[in-house]
């Protein structure tokens, strides 16, 4: 049985739809991981111990266990305690929290690297600790952390393929569906890989322009 790519175009719509869901889940989980990362980082560094310790424990748990298992736990496990999440939402939460923990590590390091003079400059003007963090320290920490966080976003895009196992109709699952009808795994997995590559190029271009804009303001 030779390769026959002529079947691929007839499933173009399916792959396009899958790509759309992949983008959607990446964007949603990406935003969750960004803002979640900031909240985790600030809590882990400055929170009251009753918040700080759970956040650190949670981070340890999320970094120390497989993402696939976390997705199973959120989608299949939570039903048992009465939380029945739609697959898309479960995927966004799983991916988002997983990468929020990684982003949080980056942001924490970046916050600690902000020059002490920045705190002093702000505090002597009369800004409170919280105001100094929000307006002076965190914006600078985020600026510095955009490039490495971009790498996390690319990893997030690729790992979004994992949510196919909980039934989110994203690109990987779309390809599998086409395969189950046509018995052409090589052609469709390759086509899916190509689609991931295109989305990835767009994401990288976006991140680069963001970095350029930040560099211009320094």
């Amino acid at each position, binding site marked *: 049985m030779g390769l026959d790519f002529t079947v691929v175009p007839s499933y173009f719509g399916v792959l396009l739809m899958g790509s759309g869901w992949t983008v959607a889940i990446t964007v949603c989980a990406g935003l969750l991981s960004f803002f979640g990362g900031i909240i985790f980082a600030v809590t882990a560094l400055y929170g009251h111990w009753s918040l700080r310790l759970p956040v650190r424990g949670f981070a340890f748990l999320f970094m120390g266990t497989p993402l696939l298992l976390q997705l199973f736990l959120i989608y299949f496990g939570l039903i048992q305690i009465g939380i029945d999440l739609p697959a898309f939402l479960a995927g966004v939460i799983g991916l988002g929290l997983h990468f929020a923990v990684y982003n949080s590590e980056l942001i924490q390091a970046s916050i600690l690297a902000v020059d002490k*003079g920045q705190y002093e400059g702000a505090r*002597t003007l*009369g*800004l*409170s600790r919280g105001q100094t963090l929000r307006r002076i320290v965190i*914006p600078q920490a985020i600026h510095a952390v955009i490039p490495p966080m971009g790498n996390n976003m690319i990893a997030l895009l690729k790992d979004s393929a994992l949510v196919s196992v909980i039934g989110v109709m994203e690109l990987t699952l779309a390809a599998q569906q086409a395969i189950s009808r046509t018995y052409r795994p090589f052609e469709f997995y390759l086509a899916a890989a190509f689609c991931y590559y295109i989305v990835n190029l767009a994401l990288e271009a976006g991140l680069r322009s963001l970095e350029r804009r930040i560099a211009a303001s320094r």
Partner: protein
Amino acid sequence: MTDQAFVTIKNAAKSFGALEVLKDINLQVERGQIVAIIGPSGSGKSTLLRAINELDPLTSGEVWLEGVQINKKLPYRQYEAHVNQVRQDIGMVFQHFNLFPHLTVRGNITLAPRMLKGLSEADANKLAEEQLAKVGLAEKIDEYPSRLSGGQKQRVAIARALAMTPKVMLFDEATSALDPELVEEVNLVMKQLAEEHMTMIIVTHEMDFAASVCDRVLFMDQGVVVEEGPPSVIFQNPQEDRTRNFLRKHLSR
């Protein structure tokens, strides 16, 4: 406490563990007075300056500004609120400028007046323009600090502090990090403030500047004020050996 000077430091002491960096220091600064603090590095002069706005709180002693005790002992939340309030009246200029690199010059100057004094955007912009004009940098209002020279950065830092209309200005070696040719532009701004009778406490290594601008000079060494007086006395006719030795090293350079 009505017989107090504008800024009063009473029995100030500070130690880091066993190391005493300030030992029973007393200082009174009248409104409009300009006081220079000189001394070798490690003498405690910066620490004393930073104690005035609670950046380095004293171990014991009192700091007063216009009848208000700066370093009140209060429960944490009240202390924070109190300190944030009194710091608005105390401008500080640092050796390394400490401008906010992610904000433009305008953003640097308007941030605190907008957040803390509730100025409208238009009023804050006007304030920024006025303060920048005063330090001669009106055209730099939309630049980021990274595009400025050291002297320009320090002048923006002064404008930022002045925008809060402080009662007293603290200068912590404001020209020490500058290239020699950039020192003068900052000194000029400080002289201009002196002419406007801004109360200033200046930690400096520049004896010429201290001599020409200040009303009083304090010489500190090893955490104590060794000698103080008008610049004519301290620089021309110091009474203490330690002062003489220090000045000999500094003036011969």
